């Protein structure tokens, strides 16, 4: 099933200036475009276009978030918004190239379907409801401690210490940063949670 979320944009076409200097042959002579397939046949609209990348406020070096090849990306930012992501020619791995996914990664950031609001589904509810992020973190902290306590195991049946909880589990992390995985493992291990898993198993 396909749902179209993007509205087609219609570019306004400026009126062609009516001047003898703009006659095709004269234009061709004037610009030295001998074959008539280059600057002489460029429209004013095309001439007025500027690459988004040229007017960006800054360019930030990044790495593609999809597969593990690790292609270099250049992230173009204007008005604190990502306007374009391109391959980084400096990268000795990718030499400026990106695949369809990497090339589409600007939409990963700006996709109209992206969720940026904290949502909560209550037990038995049939729909989401908005929730303050701060409240949500408090609720999760409470539940974390409660489930940790209920799933706690001090020792196995032979009396050997386990000091862990089986009430909490986690899955994910192969698209997270090393620093993030480090903190997750550190916090969960200190809390006694052992069922911590990752795409790397799957």
């Amino acid at each position, binding site marked *: *099933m*396909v749902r179209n979320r993007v509205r087609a944009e219609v570019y306004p076409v400026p009126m062609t200036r009516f001047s003898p200097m703009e006659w095709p042959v004269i234009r061709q002579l004037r610009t030295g475009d001998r074959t008539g397939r280059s600057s002489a046949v460029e429209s004013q609209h095309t001439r007025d276009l500027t690459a988004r990348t040229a007017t960006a406020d800054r360019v930030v070096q990044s790495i*593609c*978030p999809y*597969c593990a090849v*690790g292609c270099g990306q250049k992230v173009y930012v204007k008005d*604190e918004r990502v306007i374009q992501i391109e391959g980084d020619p*400096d*990268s000795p*791995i*990718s030499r400026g190239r990106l*695949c*369809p996914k990497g090339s589409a990664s600007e*939409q990963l*950031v700006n*996709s109209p*379907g992206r*969720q940026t*609001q*904290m*949502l*909560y589904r209550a037990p*038995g509810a049939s729909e989401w409801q908005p929730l303050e992020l701060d409240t949500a973190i408090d609720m*999760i*902290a*409470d*539940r974390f*401690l409660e*489930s940790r306590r*209920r*799933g706690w195991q001090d020792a*196995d049946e032979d009396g050997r*210490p*386990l000091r*862990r909880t*089986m*009430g909490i*589990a*986690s*899955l994910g*992390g*192969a698209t*997270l940063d*090393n*620093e993030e995985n480090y*903190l*997750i*493992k*550190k*916090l969960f*291990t200190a809390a*006694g949670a*052992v*069922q*911590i898993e*990752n*795409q*790397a*198993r*799957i």
Partner: protein
Amino acid sequence: MANADCIVIQGSNMAECHPVGFQWVTEAKARGARVIHVDPRFTRTSAVADKHLPIRAGSDIVLLGALINHVLSNDLWFHDYVVNYTNASNLISEDFEDAEDLDGLFSGYDEESGGYHLKSWAYQTEDSEGQDSRGEASDDAAGRGVDNHVFGVEHEHAKGAKQRAEAGGDKFGSGGAPVGGGASVRDETLQHPRTVFQILRRHYARYTPQMVREACGISEADFEYLARSVTENSGRDRTTCFAYAVGWTQHTLGAQFIRTASILQLLLGNMGRPGGGIMALRGHATIQGSTDIPTLFNLLPGYLPMPSVTQQSFSDYVDGIRTTEQKGYWANAEAYAVNLLKAWWGDAATAENEWAYDYIPRINGAHGTYQTLMAMLEDKVEGYFLLGQNPAVGSANGRMQRLGMSHLKWLVVRDLNMIESATWWKDGPEIASGELKTEDIQTEVFFMPAATHVEKSGSFTQTQRLVQWRHQAVAPPGDAQSELEFFFELGKRIRQRLADSEDPRDRPLLDLTWDYPLDEQGEIDPVSVLAEINGRFETGENAGEPLSSYGQMTADGSTSGGCWIYAGIYADRVNRAAMRVPGWQQDEIASQWAWAWPANRRILYNRASADPQGRPWSERKKLVWWDEESRRWTGKDNPDFPVDRDPSARPGPDVAGPDGLAGNDPFIMQADGKGWLFAPKGMLDGPLPTHYEPQESPVANPLYAQQQNPTRVMFPREDNLSAASGDAPGTDVYPFMFTTYRLTEHHTAGGMSRWLPYLSELQPEMFCEISPELAQLKGLEPYGWATIVSPRSAIEVKVLVTDRMTPLTVAGKTIHQIGLPYHWGAGTDAVVTGDGANDLLGITLDPNVQIQNFKTGSCDILPGRRPRGAQRNELVREYQQRAGLTVRTGMDRITDPERELNQDPLRARDSGDTAGRSTAYHPGEHPEDQPANRPADQEEDT
């Protein structure tokens, strides 16, 4: 890869799944390399390869084993390399019996636990005199492997399942298993019948081109082409590279697929050399990093194992990782572990309290994602975090995944998009079928928007261990947060709530080092976390300064470091992952672009790129070499070897650790410095890879009575039924094979692609690839609908009829394989949705690494869309009944107990019973009608 003379891509569609990396294959080809693609399908990779060999999915060990046989029988192995750098000359215990002699089992199989005693696989040592290897080698394994656990309690039959659980390969970490002390017995003429070399020769003798034709469906001429290509492009002057992806790993013996390629590459001298090696093509931006610094149940950072319940003291734990006598860098494991504990618990980790070792919880078996799923279904797990992961679509047996989540009290989904794992409670297939009702589901669900890769700074580790830093470009929108910020905040609030607690179980949380500096936005500074991972001096004149290598780590608490293999990434307070000298300003190694662990070495084990005397094997393939004048190793790459170790150095057997490495021991992480053709320890399903059929297979194993991997992890349940294999009754109900894969335009379970309009437009619909022959056989119309039914589910797909799929003739049967991309899922929020291929798959795991089989399954295909509502499950059930499936179908560990077990002389000696087999497995004991949803700990083992 650009330096390879021949590239064999097997178990991967690299051009499609790693398109930009594939430019290096193209580059190699432009330089004259031959490229061969072995895959069930003709793909974009095959299209640019010199040759495509269609293979029956799951038969790769036969093909690779036949290459090994070809190399050995035609004397094509790299003599100097093999004799010096591998364990070919080691003698193996007299007790070892090969799978060739026991019809598919190795010596030491224990029917109770479904695992192996490893003692008969051990090296002969001088003190064991080749007769009894139960000596030191086995004792050294305390608390670590199958050996100790199963052996010690082997007569307590009732505890079989538990022993097996505690004995899992999950406890090894990556150093693999230490071998015992004592000088090993070697025969460098390789003539002794107990040498690894001769054992190898015998083991693969029946893996012939004819067997390849029979088992893989590859003609003898095609095999000859492959064999010639690989062997003619290996040696001093030339190297061959293998590349694989999950087409090798996602099997019930996935780890052994890779082992087979390792043996071949060692025999051909292709390891540690430019253009050689085995390239693992990993599928996620930092899937490498997330095992290095793991969120995995069995590992701590730096491949240190999670402590087992059997390792109650720190010294037990450290002894479980290394022996004090072993060679190489794992001998310093104690320092690595102390540094981790110091990094996590700071001043609370002291010598007196064993560096707070007791703060780490203990594992007592596999707590992998599938075992956790079983626990969920039993209401044992209350809360679940999904962090950029979509198991409702991406994990095996999607229905069980979704039903499992419905048993949770609370679920936190952190993602960019509203993935199916966040919405199954209102629009999942089980709501449609009526199995679940939204209003009855008591699970609280928190959807937390996450930050994208450009909205946070941090590092990814790519597939060649290169750690690359990303700089933040913009702030996350709305409520979106990085995982770093969320977990830092969650940790703070958890600690606040416990601040007054006197409960000892809360000490690890309260003593945790959690005081990270904040950046200008008031958020945790990711560089400070990287600095902690790198490590620092805790005391002395350099206190507070970062470590520059793991060699500086000590076991006395004067240094700390969160992940020893990453030590040096923040040397001199410079974030080396952010190094960005453009590639075109550097040589091919590009050592100033980012940072590779360990110690910025780009090719592992590169000592092997030089001959035993330290000279490059050839000018063409030189990489590192011994410089006589400076008496140091030098070259284009950082030497992966003690830099001043003379090639002629031969420390005695009593010198341990890095100092114990001889000048010709390139494999510095192995306990004996050698590449292992034969694994005396470390693998749970055999010291040599041997072919078993997949869990569901249309043919009987052509090599052994044993059909499947006897040590695979099974979950016999009503919701996880298996089809019968070979010629067993009912196999005709699911007559076709299917295999799953990715497309360029989508990413895994779709969470990062099916919400993007561009990508959705490029690949809008779920489909299958089938051959014209199969289309004709089943009356399937191109671009029409088809329903695919497996013992787990029924899905509908569009039909793509293409001669990219080739029917194969295997064991006299025509085998039709169906290709299924797995990116789609059933929900309502994505731009494109569809049925999920993984719903068709059952859960059966590799015993070494607990990875699921994703690559093979049995199914039927029929024209038209699948039934709606409850009738979908009815169709599945009707097939199950017609095939006569029960929870026992396909779940036998030992296919033919009479034939296989009675031949094991070791077992006979152990039990003193060669005929009665009172403890042998009896299929008849298990009632056919076992109730579903029995506790997993009873079911996991048969």
